[in-house]
């Protein structure tokens, strides 16, 4: 079946619940190399998103995602606010007016989100950031869609790649964001942003 | 146009520290005349805050002012008054 706005809303709710459950874990990852607030910030942002979702219950996918982005920007507090906020805002713009998402639409939305993070964070892959989970996920999604695999399989592949990407941040040295202040000492810790990013992809595959 | 020159000694306790320097710059900027201030072998445009702060002028420092322009006399008089009145500080 083609995912529609209802699926998107359900995914956002599952993501919010997962962020809430993983709040302390994400914060503990951030305590090692950042300012120990990633889980708290993301949970606060998505709690606010949950409050906002009823106002867009009848809206198109683009409007839903833009509302999420705007809410994150004004409630998260740390750098994840503008980064995730920009990702959702750009995806929302790319998917304006859509009620359903064909695989190519979803891909376009993810690509816009990824480019938004690149532009906002002036970052690229290999710097121990959320892009190190997002980049591999996007590659896997694109490859699966181009190979005409079922969409559910494509999402599964993306989620696996995101998870592998998040784990692969552990040996990296951070060169962007607060963790970069630590230089060599950032090596050996998994990046919290990449971890939360992977969580969003996991939540697309759950509950089916 | 003739240059008006004046030599002053900073009498206030903190010298050309942040607030006095701000008042100095704001006073100089009220006039059309260009004003240079020389102290400790450094020279600054009296209307620019960073160079004035970087003079490092302290209590007892000698300030030499050079003004050029139609209201050069008035500019020098106003800056002289400001320095002599210790920028409004009690000491």
């Amino acid at each position, binding site marked *: 079946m083609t995912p529609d706005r209802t699926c998107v809303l359900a995914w956002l709710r599952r993501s919010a619940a997962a962020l809430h459950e993983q709040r302390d874990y994400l914060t503990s990852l951030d305590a090692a190399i950042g300012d120990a607030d990633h889980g708290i910030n993301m949970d606060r942002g998505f709690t606010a998103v949950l409050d906002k979702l009823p106002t867009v219950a009848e809206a198109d996918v683009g409007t839903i995602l833009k509302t999420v982005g705007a809410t994150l920007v004004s409630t998260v507090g740390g750098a994840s606010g*503008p980064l995730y906020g920009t990702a959702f805002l750009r995806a929302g713009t790319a998917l304006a007016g859509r009620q359903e998402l064909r695989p190519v639409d979803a891909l376009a939305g993810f690509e816009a989100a990824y480019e938004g993070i690149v532009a906002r964070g002036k970052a690229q892959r290999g710097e121990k950031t959320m892009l190190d989970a997002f980049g591999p996920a996007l590659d896997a999604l694109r490859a699966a869609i181009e190979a005409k695999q079922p969409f559910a399989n494509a999402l599964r592949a993306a989620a696996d790649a995101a998870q592998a990407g998040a784990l692969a941040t552990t040996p990296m040295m951070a060169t962007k964001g607060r963790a970069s202040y630590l230089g060599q000492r950032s090596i050996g810790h998994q990046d919290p942003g990449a971890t939360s990013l992977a969580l969003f992809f996991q939540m697309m595959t759950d509950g089916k | 146009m003739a240059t008006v020159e004046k030599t002053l000694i900073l009498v206030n306790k903190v010298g050309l520290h942040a607030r006095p320097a701000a008042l100095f710059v704001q006073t100089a900027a009220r006039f059309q005349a260009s004003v240079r201030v020389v102290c400790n072998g450094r020279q600054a445009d009296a209307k620019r805050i960073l160079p004035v702060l970087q003079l*490092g002028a302290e209590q007892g420092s000698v300030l030499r002012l050079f003004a050029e322009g139609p209201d050069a006399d008035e500019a020098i008089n106003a800056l002289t008054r400001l320095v002599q009145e210790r920028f409004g500080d009690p000491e």
Partner: protein
Amino acid sequence: MAVGLVIVSHSARLAEGVVELAAQMTHGAVRLAAAGGMDDGGIGTSLARVTQAIASADSGDGVVALIDLGSAALIAEMALESLDAEQRAHVRLSGGPLVEGAILAAVEASVGSPLDEVLATAESARSLEKLKR
């Protein structure tokens, strides 16, 4: 009137404190707006607060926004992007040091200097030595 200043900080108290210091230099001649903290009082930077502060600091002659760290810069950039092209043309972000930059820029603005000179002064505060050597 004069170029206005916006102080963007993760902390509401820090932003207000910098405004307090800068105001001592300007005696009401410059609009100074604090954009610190989150709406719930927590630490962080809020897009809504920054855009409101830009609006309140702008008297028509432009605004220079100074930022503390990290995500404050990202939020300030988003605030800029959210303005219409005409407004955006007279708002500048400074990466200069927050305290020194704000004080120097406030003095520069107070003497009626144009936007880009106020920005240049905020940036130049990097070269200000705190300790005599």
